[in-house]
């Protein structure tokens, strides 16, 4: 059970996850939740949280350049990519616990961030 809340059916907001502190089990700070990746289907109601895009500094990364291969103009992409080099990904199975009150996500490990897959 990756969640603290015992009762299933508990309702949350995605916005509560954005900016949440990400820590390793030993308490080391790993960054902040920058985006939440959803996967599943066929309907939107069947999409579940697949993992978190984590950055050392949650704010400031923007514009969608951070996770896309082909985007111009060159100058902007280079600047934003440079600022986003620290982005990592936490898979759902690496999430140990979410503390919604404290806006804290405890994770076991962080993986490299892959560019998101193309639309189906």
């Amino acid at each position: 059970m990756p969640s603290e809340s015992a009762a299933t059916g508990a309702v949350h907001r995605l916005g509560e996850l954005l900016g949440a502190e990400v820590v390793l089990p030993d308490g080391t700070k790993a960054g902040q939740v920058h985006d939440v990746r959803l996967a599943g289907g066929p309907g939107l109601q069947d999409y579940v949280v697949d993992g978190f895009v984590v950055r050392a500094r949650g704010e400031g990364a923007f514009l969608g350049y951070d996770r896309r291969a082909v985007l111009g103009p060159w100058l902007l992409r280079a600047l934003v990519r440079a600022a986003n080099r620290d982005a990592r990904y936490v898979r759902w199975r690496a999430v140990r616990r979410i503390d919604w009150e404290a806006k804290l996500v405890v994770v076991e490990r962080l993986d490299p961030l892959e560019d998101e897959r193309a639309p189906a």
Partner: protein
Amino acid sequence: MKRIFAVALGILTAIGGFVDIGDLVTNALVGSRFGMSLAWVVVVGVVGICVFSEMSGRVAAVSGRATFDLVRERLGPRVGLANLVASMGVTFLTFIAEIGGVALSLEIATSVNELLWVPVVAALLWIVLWRVRFAVLENVFGLLGLSLVVFAVALWQLSPDWGGLWQQVTSPSPPSGESWTQYSYYAVALFGAALTPYEVFFFSSGGVEERWTAKDVATMRLNVFLGFPLGGALSLTIAAVAAVVFLPAGVQVEALVQVALPVALALGKIGLVIALIGFFAATFGAACETGLSVGYSIAQFYGWRWGKFVPPRQAARFHLVVLLCTVLAVPVLLTTVDPIAVTEYSVVFSALALPLTYLPILVIANDPDYMGKRVNGRLANALGTVYLVVIVVASVAAIPLMILTKGGQ
């Protein structure tokens, strides 16, 4: 034939619609103080509005999303909200200036004080925004605005020393008696007058309402690439007649009637009448555009239904905002604030607010998710990047220059 007519109409209204109170006042003022030595800024500004409008027009046509719709998607709610407040503030300020400009045009024609005209103009404006069709609004005021071509005729009639004027154009530095800081301040003001955010909000929202598709991109480009530069040329003639008549006489332009004075000198009463019709059409048309643009930006930010194509009751919040704006503008003008001063500030604040609107459009125009194959090409991106730098520089410089020059005094 019908298509050629439609294209021609689009270009003509783009010319007439380009000039507003900010262009009238800033160009005449700059012409009277700096001659044609700042003409290059108008050129830079016009190319900028072409680059920006082409991108946002293409984004509107391909993705069906208007400019402010996209601002929040790329900047997030916090920065997006800051941008909304700034852009709405500038557009509202411009709206006030335009209404003041209409009232001043009527004052010049009737010598009835502008303050008495303000409530009349506001009421008329609101009725037009409520009842008159979008296309009528755009075409009537755009075409009437073309009467400002009288400035070009006046320039020719004044038979100026063309070599001297060209000399001013090619020596981009302040004339004697003016400092570099003043020169730079008015460079920013002219840039802001040519590249006003509301023009892009209005242009792209109109495109969405008219349901442009990728097929309409070619027509849209024709309008932009022919209409706006010709509109820019028109504003240069306004600066030029002021440079011919006022610069040697040491007169600084500070009232709307002065903008028309050179036309009267050159062409007499007939010229004056045509110029005043042009003033009225340009400012009234721009008042419509700015009033709607305040509504567009807030409605698009919050995802409300907006626009002139649906009955008002189906876009109730949008029409409520437009109504409130019109009502609020009246007491502001009745404080006897000088509309010309409001105009001068509005163009500088336009330059200040621009980057946060420009950046998301530049990014989205590159995003295949929105644009498919219609993403920016190399030229659009090269120019887009150059202008990103120019727009940021103008924005950063605006306030320090305003303080250093005490608002251009």
